[in-house]
């Protein structure tokens, strides 16, 4: 259904719900990156892109802890 809404938005040149949601989220926050990945998701693997964002964040935190403590 979201794709249909995207189509609607394309026809109208309007923002779809996810794009509207992004405008209310802090740029580059985890929430924004998750929503962006949701917008770009592969329909065949809808969750994978969001998992990738989360794994990227996990690695960032891991690196930060190691950088500060070692």
């Amino acid at each position, binding site marked *: *259904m979201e794709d249909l809404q995207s189509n609607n938005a394309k026809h*109208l040149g309007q923002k779809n719900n996810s794009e509207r949601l992004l405008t209310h989220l802090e740029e580059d926050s985890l*929430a924004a990156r998750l*929503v962006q990945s949701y917008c770009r998701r592969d329909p065949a693997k809808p969750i994978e892109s969001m998992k990738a964002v*989360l794994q990227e964040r996990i690695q960032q*935190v891991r690196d930060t802890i190691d950088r500060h403590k070692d």
Partner: protein
Amino acid sequence: MIATRIKSLAVRGFRAYGAAEQTLNLPSDIAVIWGPNSKGKTSLAEAFEFLLTGRISRRELMASAQDEFADALRNAHLLEDAEVYVTASMVAVDGKSHEVRRVLTGDYAKRQDCTSRLEIDGAVSTQTDLEALGIVLSQPPLEAPVLAQHTLSYIFSVRPQDRATYFKTLLEVTDLDDLRNDIAALESDLYPPADPLLGKFDALPHKVQLRFMRHTVPDAATLVAKIDEAAGALITEAGEQVPETLDKRLAEIDRILVVRRSKTFPVRNFDFTQLVGWNPPAADVWTRIDAYLDESKKVDEQTRQLVALFDEAMKLPAISEITEPVDCPLCATQSAMTPERVQLIRQHIEHSQDFKTSEKIARSALAQLLASADALGTAAEAALPKYLKAKPAVRRASGFTIARIRKLLGDGTDEIISAWLATVRPLSKAAIALRTRASVTRALVEKQTSELTTGLDTEKLRSEFAALAKCRAQLAIAIGTYKEPVTSLCAALNDVLDTQSDTVGWQNFLDIARQPEELRRSLVEGKVRITVAQELKSALRQIDLAKEKVLDDKFSDYSGLIQDWWERLRPDEPTFFSTVQFRKGAKRTIDFKAGLSANVDRSAPKVRDVIAIFSQSQLHCLGLAMFLARAQHEGLGFIVLDDPVLSSDEDYRVHFNSTVLSELLKIPMQVIVLTQDHNTWKELDLRYRHLSIATAQLFVDAPAEGTLIENTSDVLLAKINRARSLARGGHPDLRKECGIQLRDAGERFCKEILVKERHDKGDAAACLTDYDGKTLEWLCPHVEPLLVHDPSHPGKLAVFRNTVNNACHDNTPPGNAGMTQACGDILFLVKDYLRP
């Protein structure tokens, strides 16, 4: 951008429509179709819906009555093999004409949806293909841009929760709920299988001050220092001397722990040594023994006894250096000692030396075998737990009894004890078997060594060592089976003992302290997961807040649009639609608010729920305003409105006919209005004539034939359709009226042909009024030469003229068959020459 426009709709066998295909022409942006009650208006609206979605929303909205829609789509009077379809000719967003067709392949049945086949330009297609034509559906249940009476009434009649859900889908934000749920589901990814090391860390004794590491993971050196510090504190607290190094401190803690536990129970009796590694004798060992046997064959016993004598003889130059035969110095036999015999003696001496060397090596190999057997015997003994090595009396005296273990562990632990006991006997048996075998092997090796020169039997030795290896393997299996139950038993026992000896968590401390690097890795990973989990929770809260803002934005947008349409429908009323919003604190409830003002300028309104204060007419009007707002918001190319105005609502109708429709056409949007109100039909025909409004009427001649569509805006086709319905009438007056209609249709056909021919030749000024007053008698001879598509066509027109003339005069009109044939002929010519 070009919006999709429907140019015509053809229906066959769908709901009220019968076997004969009925076509609704929609040449302009506005169309109005009149039909009395139960004459197929709603069926026509649902034909649009079926074409676009493959279903009808009425069934979805009336969930409790879904079974009642069994066989509802196929006309009840249709022959079994007749195809049911709806076809639309449309100009799509690509600017091209397309034919979209939906064929019913399976009707609704009890608890079963209908099935259909979508075709676009003759090819089987999908909803996605339909979207490519610019027909993008909304969320269910109102997917198609078709508004019917039952839709409006449904909105305000369902339970409040269902209404909230209904409006939520109407306002299309459920995708954000899906998004939110998908993100929330990611939390499970943050928690991999439990880390045993962290489990032990979390169960450290309270007096061990290391918990802060869960929040702030120190660097590796600090972590070790803190462990060292904690170890020292633990030993001090136990009243013992603190050693210098961490290793020694941990060993001391281990010692104290054992001592304390042993005060309650001799837990060390469970200790056992790992079964040491053992390899069967290497091939080299057997090779060396075999070499000895080979050498021994070369030198017989007598030679071995004479070797000393040979050695001495060869020391004499008179013998060792002879070139001619000499007498034997031992027996004095003349010329017995020849150079050849001396050479033979030398060979005997050499062989005897090789033999001695190999014997030495063989003895060394046998000593290795002996050591190997001894080592296994020792290993078998060491691998046994202490309690199995101690004599029963000594064991009992130390307090190591099963009864004591049961008592310590308490109720409910029989399973642990039984599992352990079940592995003790096999372990004991395997150890004894190995020990016994090792003794037997030892004796054999010793015997073989002592009888080396006379009776060495390598096959027997090999066989014995193979048996020894088998016993060892069986002991290794028994130990493997024993380990898990005894570990569980010890863990349970240690828990009890730790509680009684105030050493709870000490073992955990020892375990983590001995793996500082692994502990740090686990702490970092735990910290990472906790941090990201908190961030994910925070992200979800942000998304929730943002979602509310999106909803507020959308609701605000919709509120504005709904207000606009409301004002067009019911301008200047003191009671007015105010806003659509979520109910505070109840996210599943959507409120529609109305303003009540005592003043003409609507100032100082009291805000109330529309459901409570709006009249049926106002609620109806609000439903229509919402539908129009959505259609405008989504940029739909066309809408179908089935009786959008209540018949009792005259004031509201005026505004709909004028302001509302004008605004919709300005958007621009194609509007198809179905109405039972004849005045509305006439008014719209007059009001929008400048826009070439398409008009049509629905009627039913015979129930079995279903609804007929008369496209009244196409004067020619309208007359033919009217005549067709009259042609079937049995009464002569009806056939006479049919003849009059047909005569008018024939004259119109001829005039249009003549005008078209002149236009084709460049006479742009040609118009129908040029032939005012001309009858078929004048027109037909002028038209017949222009009917060139087939030689039979002029004849068809001539026969048509005769039939019509007979019907229109005073004599009895031709029969049904003749009139029907005349209708068919003129319709054929119209479609072939004017309306392809």
